[in-house]
């Protein structure tokens, strides 16, 4: 029933047309957003029921979601304890890179997932809950929210989350994917010590480790690299990084074994040659070092200045040591092995 005073004047009609256009535009926008979702991949149903739940206090979904995955990885903590590490009062929220930093402070290695739903489902299948960033608003009016994905129901096409104040929140696959896509498909896995995420190529995993190594406890960093080496034994950069971390932690023989393997698989690995030569020099083996790092200038030409300078320095060290002791002692043979 229409109120008698509500008559359509020309002005009102114009306003109505304008608002109709607005609604149409909004609807188009919404359908455009929904269009990006992909159908759920063919995977088994999973629910990680053992993942703990911390209902979030106001604006505190960052600490709550982080506590959820950290406790699952064996850390003893609470959202209240994590808030001073990640919450930014003026932003009324937490930043992604500070969640990563906080996980490192707890002695864990956080891994950002490769983009897309495949990685998410692979992690769930491997028993790893995934901390995700969602944009619950629009692209132009974002509402950022952290939640933890703990399960997937392929039959009902639903995702199961620990989110906000809901212990078991069910979201339609398409709706979740749209909100996750608007947040760049950002997902974080924090595995138990000595474990790695199930998804992620050798290259992706190695990059994540290398980026964060300086901010990790030395033992934690080493465990991460050693684990990566077990999974990808022939990967040049993982051999290189694991050799470096072994040497830095006082295991020159273990390091030398890996540098040798590296130079067999990738003879062109210049950084590996340099570091192996440096190791041999510190063990007073200049002859072996010279064999590892031939003194050629064109060798280093294509490399950026810091790398070039380091190699030039090593070459100079080799030359000066060779001048004083032209013969290697017996123990060098074992350290250098048979070089390619």
């Amino acid at each position, binding site marked *: 029933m229409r109120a008698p005073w509500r008559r359509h004047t020309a002005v*009102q009609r114009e*306003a*109505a047309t304008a*608002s109709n256009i607005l*609604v149409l535009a*909004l609807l188009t926008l919404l359908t455009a957003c929904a269009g990006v979702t992909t159908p759920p991949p063919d995977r088994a149903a999973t629910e990680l029921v053992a993942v703990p739940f911390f209902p*979030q206090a*106001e*604006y*505190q*979904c*960052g600490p709550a979601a982080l506590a959820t995955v950290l406790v699952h990885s064996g850390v003893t903590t609470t959202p209240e304890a994590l808030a*001073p*590490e990640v919450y*930014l*009062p*003026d*932003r*009324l*929220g*937490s*930043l*992604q*890179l*500070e969640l990563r*930093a906080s996980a*490192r*402070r707890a002695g864990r290695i956080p891994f950002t997932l490769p983009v897309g739903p495949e990685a998410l489902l692979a992690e769930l299948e491997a028993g790893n809950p995934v901390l995700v*960033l*969602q944009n619950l*608003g629009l692209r132009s*009016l*974002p*509402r*950022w*929210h*952290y*939640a933890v994905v703990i399960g997937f129901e392929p039959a009902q096409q639903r995702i199961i989350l620990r*989110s*906000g104040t809901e212990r078991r929140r069910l979201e339609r696959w398409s709706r979740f994917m749209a909100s996750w896509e608007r*947040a760049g498909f950002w997902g974080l896995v924090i595995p138990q010590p000595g474990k790695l995420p199930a998804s992620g190529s050798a290259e992706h995993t*190695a*990059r994540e480790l*290398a*980026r964060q*190594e*300086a*901010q990790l406890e030395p033992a934690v960093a080493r465990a991460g690299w050693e684990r990566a080496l077990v999974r990808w034994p022939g990967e040049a950069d993982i051999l*290189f*990084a694991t050799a*470096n971390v072994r040497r830095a932690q006082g295991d020159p023989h273990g390091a030398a074994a890996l540098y040798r393997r590296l130079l067999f698989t990738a003879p062109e690995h210049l*950084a590996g040659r*340099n570091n192996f030569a*440096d190791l041999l*020099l510190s063990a007073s083996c200049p002859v072996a070092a010279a064999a590892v790092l031939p003194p050629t200038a064109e060798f280093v030409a294509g490399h*950026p200045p*810091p*790398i070039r300078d380091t*190699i030039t320095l*090593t070459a100079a060290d080799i030359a000066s040591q060779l001048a004083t002791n032209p013969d290697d002692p017996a123990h060098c043979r074992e350290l250098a092995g048979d070089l390619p």
Partner: protein
Amino acid sequence: MLNTRLVVLLQILALLVASTVGTAQAAVIGTADHFAQQSRNEQLGVIDAALTRDTVQQQMVAMGVSHADAMARIGALSDAELQQLAQNIETLPAGSSALGVLGALFLVLLVLEIVGVTNVFTKL
């Protein structure tokens, strides 16, 4: 005044210590450097690091974090992360609350109501 001088002095000291540590291992190519060399966008100027640290700490304190917490938080960040924060701390996504969505929805409904498209509130 004295405080500022003390801070400057400490920074110089920190820079000196950092550079000596650097030369002690100059003949080794670090894992991070090796990977950064492969993806150029991760390369950072060494001189910027101390300055960036300072900038981010001030930003954090200005945004309501305590001095002690800000120090600890900065210590846990890599140079690349610090650089990112220094440039984008105001705009990076800050995940907060699902409740805010209701606010946005309410706003849209209210606008539609005022323009006369819906009658949600008048019929109540």
